[in-house]
């Protein structure tokens, strides 16, 4: 599978859909089954329920911390001796739901943790990963810091802007891309490193930029559709490196409208059995 991914872009270091995110459908992520199961009875959960997913299916008007998100928020809060410790993870959660963190979201988080909205705003604006305004479906962050810069980071950045037809920090006309410069992404041995939503693309050269954008354009409509409730058996879902294409995306009752909060119902959570066991999840072989 790594070979296939490698040849897609002819890039030996292509990280693509690395790791263990690729086989998860949107429903997996939206639900609370995957994230932060509470291991031994009654203990504080140890694992994360706070990965900063950047999903394509976002709703800037959605209400925060309802349904499965309520569950996740409570799990997160249970792990800190003081409630304020949950501030960063809850902001992440808000961003996952809405795609960005605006003043209203900050106020909601503040209320959740009994802090003042001004204080939360002061914290949220300190960190660069909270988008203070909406971004495109794919947030493309090109590392132009010294190690990547030596190997052409600036040129890759310019190429992304050109290919996406946008200015730095703006949303492209079709709503698909926002391209920004990033500070060191911690992949200096694989220049140029590019982070697109949660994915890392490594050893990116200017020549590969159009192909990457093309791949993202192909993924876009697929990833935007809500995943079906009846997920395939675990074996069939091991399409590692590929995006899950729902068999019947338009199943009745599954349409997501602005008036129905798609995250509210716990019934959208896939059964735990649908998740492949941990040991045989696809992994990213050493293409990094």
């Amino acid at each position, binding site marked *: 599978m790594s070979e296939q991914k490698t040849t897609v872009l002819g890039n*030996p*270091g292509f990280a693509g859909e*690395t*790791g*263990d*995110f690729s086989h998860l459908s949107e429903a997996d992520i939206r639900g609370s089954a995957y994230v*932060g*199961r509470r*291991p*031994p009875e009654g*203990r*504080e959960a*140890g*694992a*994360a329920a*706070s*990965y*900063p997913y950047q999903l394509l299916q976002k709703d800037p008007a959605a209400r925060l911390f309802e349904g499965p998100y309520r569950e996740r928020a409570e799990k997160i809060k249970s792990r*800190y*001796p*003081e409630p*304020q*410790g*949950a*501030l*960063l993870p809850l*902001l*992440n959660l808000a961003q996952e739901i809405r795609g960005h963190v605006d003043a209203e979201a900050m106020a909601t988080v503040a209320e959740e*943790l009994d802090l003042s909205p001004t204080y939360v705003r*002061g*914290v949220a604006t*300190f*960190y*660069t*990963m909270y988008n203070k305004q909406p971004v495109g479906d794919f947030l493309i962050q090109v590392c132009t*810091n*010294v*190690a990547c*810069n*030596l*190997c052409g980071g600036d040129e890759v950045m310019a190429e992304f802007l050109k290919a996406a037809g946008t200015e730095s920090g703006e949303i492209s006309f079709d709503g698909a891309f926002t391209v920004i410069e*990033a*500070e*060191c992404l*911690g*992949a*200096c*041995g*694989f*220049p140029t490193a590019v*982070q697109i939503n*949660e*994915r890392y693309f490594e050893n990116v050269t200017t020549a590969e930029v159009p192909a990457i954008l093309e791949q993202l354009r192909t993924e876009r409509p697929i990833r935007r559709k809500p995943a079906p409730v009846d997920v395939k058996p675990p074996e069939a879902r091991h399409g590692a490196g590929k995006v899950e294409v729902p068999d019947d995306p338009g199943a009745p009752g599954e349409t997501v409208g602005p008036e129905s909060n798609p995250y509210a119902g716990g019934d959208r959570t896939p059964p735990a059995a649908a998740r492949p066991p*941990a*040991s045989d999840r696809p*992994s*990213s*072989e*050493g293409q*990094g």
Partner: protein
Amino acid sequence: MAYPYRHERETRVLSEHFGDPEARTLEGWKKRGGYAALKTALGMAPNEVVDIVKNSGLRGRGGAGFPTGVKWSFMPKDDSRQSHYFLINADESEPGAFKDRELCRWTPHQLIEGAMIGAHAIRAKHVYIYIRGEFFEPAQIIGRAIEEVYAAGIAGPDAMGSGISIDVTLHLGAGAYICGEETALMNSLEGRRGQPRIKPPFPAVMGAFSKPTTINNVETVCAVPHIITNGADWYRQWGTEKSPGTKLFNMSGHLVRRGNFELPLGFPLKDLIYDVCGGIRDGRKLKAVIPGGSSVPILAADEIDIAMDYESVAAAGTMLGTASVIVMDDQTNMVKQVRRMVEFYAHESCGQCTPCREGTQWLARILRRIEDGYGRQEDLDQLLEIGTNMTGTTICVLSDSAAAPVASSIAKFKDEYLALIRRAEPAAAAV
């Protein structure tokens, strides 16, 4: 395995299982001898564990090189275990460093095992692994490994049947370089702005959530299980007297082979560049080397005949830091690269201390002016003066880090600056 970076001169202790997906699972890790060291350590008194690590001479791999065992011994010897925290710093964001990401990606159980041993040694009940928010994939891998160790009863109220309670939590940052500083990391964990705190009080007295806290880098913690299993003397077979052990060297820039190479400390920098990494790309000549990440002074091409251990690098006027070696060839525009580094610090300055908040901005502006061809004769002196005022005058060392490459590049590559300034001021050049 087909992991791309392998060299015959490497000594692979921490990186032995890089590229092996099976080693990332609990089963696979146990098959490779994993969690035996934790079992051993949990059977010991905390002080015994501290002594072994102290004797091994392991030094912090996050940049400062402080002896780990000594750091652990600062913690109060309070057996109630109610209120100590052990933090793992996986907020790797030093430009040039990319070792922790690989350790997290490939050996999550090595990290958790080391973290739990450390927690036992300092009598902590709770481990927080603070990983930077951009490391989504490593975070997922660690998160899954944590679920595995909970399910297997390795972590939790009765760690490996020892009756000792150790919890492990993963915490994601949200994009701020300064959170790699230990007290800033604690503030960030508590849900505050990541601004460094004034020391004292030191973390061992009052750290995260106002409780005694110890914080270690990922690479430091990953070495601990091996030391517990094989003993302090075994670890001392590598490296020098004062800098024992192996180290991941993060090689980036204009090299034929880039990547992480694990080698004994004290390995010659020249061999590292020309043998292990295959020399400079496209047959070019070496111009400059940054030996420890972008915060340390730059070395010119004729200064690379040094050994890569903490003392030798310091003797050469720079720092080993995270051993993140950035190599630049003779085509490099030094002014541009220094400007890019300084812009990074200007962006990441937390804004608490005036010399840093103002100084980084002015350095970046003046360097940009020189690069764009509008430099003035007095600019170099001005840069040096700003840099002097930024050094040693702030709470943390970010300010010093921003000034270091400027001062060292002006000292060693002054001609390049002058050439740009002369072009801007033809009249001045004639004088």
